[in-house]
């Protein structure tokens, strides 16, 4: 896996760890936010890919700086590495959707400190910076959160914005492309994911309404590539138009 910086202002930084080597499990991005020597890992990933995620992480931060981990929902590609992280650093506070507590415990490490996020959301303070847990229920999981950093203008959007990309993919959706052509090409690889994994059009509308109020420079999904600058609005428009929940035919 590779590490690339997303945002940097003094001691405040965001990174993406991306392009997994193991292809038998779904390729997933892991994000890291560091502020004043403390850091948060977002959707730390699956049990199988843990060694490579850990090795990539150590390129950008010392592991002892990890104070907290955020788990957007209960899926194994997100949280099944929990017992291994816990074995490495038992101080990590795990912020998880309250609804999934008993499920996430199934991954092991029964004594790991889990901090429940209530349905309405909440926030966390890392190195003096406040990050917001934004509800994104039914996108796709029934209890699901995203993380917003108002200073960096980064929205970590979990499975929203996800695309299934081939090995060696870039961390960004055509960052230098002004025409929108790179976006069009990319979004074709995101379409099925959203149509099939996202269950609720009502949840989608509600999320778009709330997220549109935020200033977002980087929309960071757990699979695929980051939407930056104009691609953020392009994505929101595209998602707005898309009909999801196609597992059942009305």
């Amino acid at each position, binding site marked *: 896996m590779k590490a690339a910086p997303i945002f940097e202002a003094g001691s405040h930084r965001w990174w993406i760890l991306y392009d997994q080597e193991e292809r038998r499990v779904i390729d997933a991005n892991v994000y890291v936010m560091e502020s004043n020597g403390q850091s948060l890992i977002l959707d730390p990933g699956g*049990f199988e890919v*843990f*060694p*490579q995620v*850990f*090795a*990539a992480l*150590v*390129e950008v*931060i*010392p*592991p*002892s700086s990890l104070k907290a981990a955020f788990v957007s929902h209960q899926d194994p590609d997100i949280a099944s590495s929990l*017992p*291994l992280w816990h*074995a*490495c*650093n038992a101080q990590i506070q795990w912020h998880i959707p309250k609804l999934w507590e008993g499920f996430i415990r199934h991954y*092991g490490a029964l004594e790991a400190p889990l901090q429940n996020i209530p349905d309405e959301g909440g926030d966390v303070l890392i190195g003096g910076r406040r990050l917001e847990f934004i509800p994104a229920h039914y996108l796709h999981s029934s209890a699901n959160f995203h993380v917003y950093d108002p200073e960096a203008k980064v929205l970590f959007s979990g499975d929203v914005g996800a695309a299934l990309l081939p090995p060696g993919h870039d961390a960004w959706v055509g960052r230098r492309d002004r025409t929108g052509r790179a976006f069009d090409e990319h979004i074709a690889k995101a379409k099925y994911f959203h149509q099939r994994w996202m269950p609720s059009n009502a949840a989608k509308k509600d999320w778009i309404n709330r997220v549109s109020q935020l200033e977002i420079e980087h929309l960071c999904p757990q699979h695929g590539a980051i939407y930056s600058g104009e691609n953020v609005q392009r994505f929101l428009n595209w998602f707005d138009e898309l009909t999801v929940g196609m597992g059942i035919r009305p």
Partner: protein
Amino acid sequence: MEIQHIMQVVDASFVARQSIEKSLREIDRRALNAMVLVKRHGNTLAGYGVVAQAFRERAANLKESASHLQETIAPLIQAHMRILQHQRFVASFSAIAQAMAQYGQICASLENIRTRWRDTIAREEVEARKILLRLIATVDVLQEGIEEQEYVVTNGRIEAALAEDTGAPLMRVSRDMGEAVRTVSNAIRTYRHQLESLAYESSTDI
């Protein structure tokens, strides 16, 4: 091997890499300053010019060797994290075996699986140790480079003393060079100690 010890070494690797990179940048800057100073004084400082040039070249070599550090650290970390994963399996099978023993039951195939995982871990530990020894060798190359650099600094001091009447602040420049080299030398020495203690622990495990 104790996971907390590995975590300490992982942290130390991060700190060492950062401080080595930073001091190498510093060394490069000092070397450039010295070259500029020599140029400004024309032929009178030709002797010191040779030293400054050597200092700069060595600095470039050091940067090259340091860049190989990360290539070896990442596989070492991966190897240890893989071991950690597999230890989880052994722990699970041990828990089952223990629970069964409470009812006076023994399951031979369960015991076989457990042994197989233990063997896997033992093999992985041997492999991890090889990577660790490779990392120590990389650090050694870096350390040798630093020693050469220290030698150049000493030569610089001699040249500076000889050229004192030119009025160029060569003594100060040499002192700065020495300072920068000492910083990186200390960082590498500390790091090597930490790696050695891990190597010692791994040799007693295997």
